[in-house]
C-alpha cells in the first residue's frame, strides 16, 4: 500500500492543513457571530457616525446596557440631536464626540433694526476666506466672501422672514431676533429753515414719530407734538443749531438716561455740549462737486470739518480725509455729530433716488443712536453658535476609544477575511502539492 505510507514530512503537512482548516472555520464562525449578534448587547463604547446617529440615538436611549457612546461628527449636529445627546449624558451615558477635522468657530446674531422701516442687522463670525451664503425662509439673501481681515461680517437686511441662516460649505448657523424695538419719538430742535423742515419730513416719511420745535423769532416757535426729553417717550434728540441751548440741561439729562443725541454743526459749538460732543469744528469745506451724483451724492454738500476731541471717537463718514460725521459714547448713550447743515439740497436736487436716500440716511443716523426699548418676542430655537452649543452640551471633543470605531472594526474584519482566504489557499496548495485533491 504504497499510498498508505506517509513520510514524516507528509504527516507534518497534513497536520498543518488540518490546523489551517480548523483555524479558517473558527475565524469564519467568529466573524459570523459578530455579524449576527445584536448591537445592543455591546457593553463597551458604542461609536456612531453622523449618518447613523438617528438610529444610534434611539438605540442608546432604549438600551440600558449602553454605558458609553461616542459620535464621529463631520459637522456640528442640529439642536435636536445635540440636545438629545446632552439628555443622554445627563441620564448617565458617557457621551463623547470627536471630529476628523476642526470645526470652524462660527456664530450668528440677528438684531432688529432700530429703523421704523423694519429689517434686521445680521452679524456673522466666520473663518477667513469663507464664502458666506445668507438666507431666510424666503430664500437666499446674499452671498459674500469673508476676506482675510476683519472680525466678522455685518449684513443690513431690509426684511427678514424667519431666522437668518448662514452657510459656509457644509457648516451652517442660524439665528433670529429675540426682541423687537419699541419705536419712540424723535425730537427735532432748530431754527425754522429748509434743513429742519426736511429733516422732520424725511423722518416722518420713514415712519418715525417726530416732535419738533422750530424757532421762528426770539419769542415765537412753531411746535409740532410734545417735546418730552425723556427716554420713556423719546429715543433721539436732533439738535440742529444753537437754539438747543434753551434745553441744554434737559438734553444732557436725557443723554445720561441713555437717550441718543445728534448734534448739528452749529449745536455742537454750544459750551453746554462740550463734554459730550465728539468733535470740535474745523474749517468749512465746500462742495466737492456741483451735481448730486447718485454714487456719492453727499460730495455735492458743503460741510463743517470735524476734529475728534478725544480718543475713542469713531469717524462715521469722511470725505477726502476730513471727518464729516463722528460718533462717541457718552455714558450709556451714543452721540453723533455731523458736519452737514444743508442735506435738504440733496433731497431736492439729487437724482430720482435722492428723496428715498435722504430719508434712509437720516433714519439710519437716528436709529444708530436711538434709545432702544426692547420688547421680547417668542422665537423658535435656533442654532446661533453650533460649536459653542455643542461644547456646552457635551464638553470638548475627546479621542475616539481605541478599537471601538466602526472603521477600525471594518478594518479588522477585512484583515480577518484575507487571513481566512490565505489559510484556505495555503491548505489547498499544500494538498495539491501532495497530489491530493
Amino acid at each position, binding site marked *: 500500500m504504497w499510498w498508505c505510507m506517509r513520510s514524516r514530512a507528509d504527516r507534518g503537512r497534513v497536520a498543518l492543513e488540518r490546523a489551517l482548516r480548523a483555524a479558517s472555520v473558527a475565524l469564519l464562525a467568529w466573524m459570523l457571530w459578530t455579524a449576527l449578534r445584536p448591537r445592543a448587547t455591546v457593553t463597551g463604547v458604542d461609536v456612531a457616525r453622523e449618518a447613523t446617529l438617528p438610529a444610534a440615538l434611539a438605540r442608546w436611549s432604549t438600551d440600558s446596557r449602553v454605558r458609553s457612546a461616542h459620535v464621529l461628527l463631520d459637522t456640528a449636529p442640529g439642536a435636536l440631536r445635540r440636545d438629545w445627546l446632552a439628555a443622554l449624558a445627563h441620564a448617565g451615558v458617557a457621551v463623547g464626540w470627536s471630529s476628523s477635522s476642526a470645526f470652524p468657530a462660527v456664530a450668528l446674531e440677528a438684531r432688529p433694526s432700530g429703523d421704523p422701516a423694519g429689517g434686521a442687522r445680521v452679524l456673522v463670525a466666520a473663518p477667513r476666506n469663507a464664502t458666506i451664503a445668507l438666507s431666510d425662509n424666503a430664500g437666499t439673501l446674499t452671498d459674500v466672501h469673508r476676506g482675510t481681515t476683519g472680525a466678522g461680517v455685518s449684513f443690513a437686511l431690509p426684511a427678514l422672514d424667519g431666522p437668518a441662516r448662514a452657510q459656509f460649505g457644509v457648516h451652517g448657523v442660524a439665528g433670529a431676533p429675540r426682541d423687537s424695538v419699541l419705536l419712540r419719538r424723535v425730537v427735532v430742535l432748530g*431754527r425754522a429753515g429748509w434743513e429742519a*423742515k*426736511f429733516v422732520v*419730513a424725511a423722518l416722518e416719511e420713514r415712519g418715525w414719530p417726530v416732535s419738533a420745535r422750530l424757532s*421762528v423769532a426770539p419769542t415765537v416757535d*412753531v411746535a409740532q407734538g410734545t417735546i418730552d426729553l425723556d427716554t420713556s417717550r423719546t429715543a433721539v434728540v436732533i439738535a440742529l443749531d444753537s437754539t438747543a441751548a434753551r434745553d441744554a440741561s434737559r438734553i444732557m439729562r436725557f443723554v445720561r438716561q441713555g437717550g441718543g443725541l445728534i448734534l448739528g454743526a452749529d449745536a455742537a459749538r454750544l459750551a453746554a455740549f462740550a463734554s459730550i460732543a465728539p468733535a470740535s469744528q474745523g474749517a468749512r469745506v465746500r462742495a466737492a462737486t456741483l451735481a448730486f451724483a447718485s454714487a456719492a451724492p453727499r460730495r455735492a454738500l458743503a460741510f463743517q470739518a470735524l476734529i475728534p476731541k478725544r480718543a475713542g471717537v469713531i469717524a462715521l463718514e469722511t470725505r477726502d480725509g476730513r471727518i464729516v460725521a463722528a460718533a462717541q459714547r457718552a455714558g450709556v448713550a451714543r452721540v453723533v455729530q455731523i458736519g452737514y*447743515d*444743508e442735506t435738504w439740497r440733496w433731497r*431736492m*436736487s439729487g437724482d430720482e433716488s435722492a428723496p428715498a436716500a435722504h430719508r434712509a440716511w437720516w433714519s439710519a443716523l437716528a436709529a444708530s443712536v436711538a434709545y432702544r426699548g426692547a420688547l421680547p418676542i417668542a422665537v423658535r430655537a435656533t442654532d446661533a453658535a453650533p460649536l459653542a452649543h455643542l461644547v456646552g452640551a457635551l464638553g470638548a471633543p475627546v479621542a475616539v476609544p481605541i478599537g471601538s470605531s466602526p472603521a477600525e472594526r471594518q478594518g479588522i474584519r477585512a484583515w480577518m477575511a484575507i487571513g481566512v482566504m490565505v489559510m484556505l489557499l495555503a491548505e489547498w496548495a499544500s494538498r495539491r502539492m501532495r497530489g491530493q485533491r
Partner: protein
Amino acid sequence: MRAPNEFVFATVQYESGDWDSAPLVPANITDSIARYTSIAVQPSGAIVPLASPELLRYPLAFMTGHLPVRFSDAERASLRTYLERGGMLFCDDHNHDIDGAFHKTATEELGRVAGPLAELPNTHALYSAFFKFEDGPPATGHELNGWGDNLIHKHLLAAMRGDRIAVLFSNKDYSSEWGYHPENKRFLSVDNTRFGVNVVVYALTR
C-alpha cells in the same frame, strides 16, 4: 457768499404770460421776514425758470401774472418733481378775478400737475403759522375797492400733499397789495404783508 440755510424769495419765470408783473413783492416780503422773524434771509430774491433744475434750490416759489398761462411739458415735469420732493408753490392771480384768463388757465395747469385745487379751510395752520388770521386770508385793498370781479374771496385754494400744502392759489391779488417799496410800510397802520410772513413761515416749518 451765501450763508447756509438763508431763505431766498424765489419768483418763478414761466414761458407764457407775464411772470414778472410784481417785481417789488420779493423785496417787500423779504423785508417783512427780516423785520418780524429771526429767519436768516438773503436780501436779494431769485428769479428761477420753472423748467430749470435750479427751481429745486428754492423749496418755496412765488408765481404771479395777468395773462393766460400755458406750461410747456418741461415746465410741467419740473413742477411735478418740485412738488413731489417737498417744494411749495404760491401762485397769486394778479387780476383778482375768478373769471379772468389767469385764474382759469393757471388753476387748470396747476390742477394737471398737482391735482385739483380745493378751498383751504380758514382754520388751516397757514393762518396761524406766525400772525393770527382768525377769518382766513386777509382781504386786500383791491377786493375792498371792488376792483376785478368785485368779490371778497373768502378762501384760498390749495392742492395738498398729505397734510401739507403743495400749491397755494390766491385770487386776492396780493401781488398788487404787496407790490411797493418796503420803506413805505411806515405809512401803513397795519402792515399788509404780514400774511406773506405766514406763507413763508408755513413753508419753512411744515
